[in-house]
């Protein structure tokens, strides 16, 4: 039976924990709003980009002079997995879920006799994949200093990827990130970005317009494809950012609630022990008085 003092100390420490988790939840809520706004602001560009690319790609795909970024290298031997996670923990299963999906995919590919290379974005994913797949790591992108995700960050990742692709380091690239559905639901997602695949958002066939191209169609496509890749990465990063904050918010919310429940329980126990001590003292006094 813990002493009164112990109980009091524990209640105090749980109260402090609750304060911290509550503060973290509020910070996450504020950050989530900002992340969602950023994702919202990026949407028009990504949508237009996707629509244009889908139209262009459709007309060029399959032809011999289509860029390799679109057609692929003709093999799918070496897979590049780009695993995007957060820089920080304390966000529920967010990082673990993404890492799990990437791990499953990597194991599957390895079992099929394919080669796997892993590029990690964000510290947490690197840490959790290092033990099993450390030997496949080819690079890491550190975003811990980045306060606000900008398109340049996505672009530098895309540039890195395309130059590796041009150098023949891999055949297929897939990004792993979490799509933001709501504060309580984030789905880990795998999306192939090289060779580029663009599908119209809701499966709706884009009205085919006969555009004039300036310069030529293939040249425009060659110019646009790297941008398309960068845009997809940017969208994924933003989604991931919003998901991370959403996951942290709900994790911290339940942590706060748990702490509250614990405080209630401890307080009841504390009150009971105190009452027991008082009763005991009273009995002692009364029985002492009776003995006189």
């Amino acid at each position: 039976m813990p002493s009164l003092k112990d109980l009091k100390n524990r209640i105090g420490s749980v109260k402090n924990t609750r304060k911290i988790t509550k503060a973290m939840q509020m910070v996450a809520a504020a950050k989530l709003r900002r992340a969602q706004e950023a994702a919202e602001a990026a949407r028009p560009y990504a949508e237009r980009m996707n629509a244009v690319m889908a139209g262009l790609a459709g007309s060029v795909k399959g032809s011999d002079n289509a860029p390799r970024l679109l057609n692929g290298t003709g093999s799918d031997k070496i897979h590049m997995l780009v695993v995007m996670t957060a820089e920080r923990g304390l966000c529920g299963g967010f990082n673990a879920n993404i890492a799990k999906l990437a791990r499953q995919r990597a194991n599957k590919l390895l079992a099929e006799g394919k080669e796997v290379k892993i590029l990690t974005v964000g510290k947490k994913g690197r840490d959790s994949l290092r033990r099993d797949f450390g030997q496949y790591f080819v690079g890491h992108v550190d975003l811990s200093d980045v306060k606000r995700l900008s398109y340049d960050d996505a672009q530098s990742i895309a540039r890195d990827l395309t130059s590796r692709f041009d150098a023949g380091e891999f055949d297929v690239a897939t990004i792993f990130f979490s799509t933001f559905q709501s504060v309580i639901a984030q789905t880990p997602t795998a999306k192939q970005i090289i060779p580029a695949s663009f599908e119209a958002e809701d499966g709706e066939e884009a009205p085919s317009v006969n555009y004039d191209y300036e310069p030529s169609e293939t040249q425009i496509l060659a110019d646009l494809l790297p941008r398309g890749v960068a845009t997809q990465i940017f969208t994924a990063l933003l989604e991931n950012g919003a998901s991370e904050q959403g996951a942290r918010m709900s994790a911290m919310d339940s942590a706060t609630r748990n702490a509250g429940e614990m405080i209630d329980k401890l307080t009841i126990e504390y009150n009971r022990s105190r009452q027991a001590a008082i009763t005991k003292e009273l009995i002692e006094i009364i029985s002492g008085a009776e003995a006189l």
Partner: protein
Amino acid sequence: MADSMQFDLVAPERKLASVEEAIEVMVPGADGDLTVMPGHAPMLTTLRPGKLTLVTRTETYSYAVTGGFAEITPEGVTVLAERSLPAEEFTKEVHDHLIEEARRVHEEAHPSVADLTAKLLADMEAMGTHMTL
């Protein structure tokens, strides 16, 4: 024929402009400047760094763009610019910074694309004159 058209200027991070009553848009196309008026034949062009001008019934707006592409349909123009600023925000410092960056890219570039990066650099430098800095 309609006498005005839709104009959208979007950057990856935000939407810069969306105007329904555009009368004329001057676009710095990669193969030369072009002016788009309502009812233009559909076309797709890449952009070089330069000045984009939008004329509406009442006002004229200018933007600095550093590249991207424009989708033109008879109903309107959509410009997807990688980096873009309203002309008022395009200062000497921003311009110098861009030139610096273009120069660095040019110096580090592979010889096979040196022509392209040299052109980019030249366009960047010329941009200052266009934007009347």
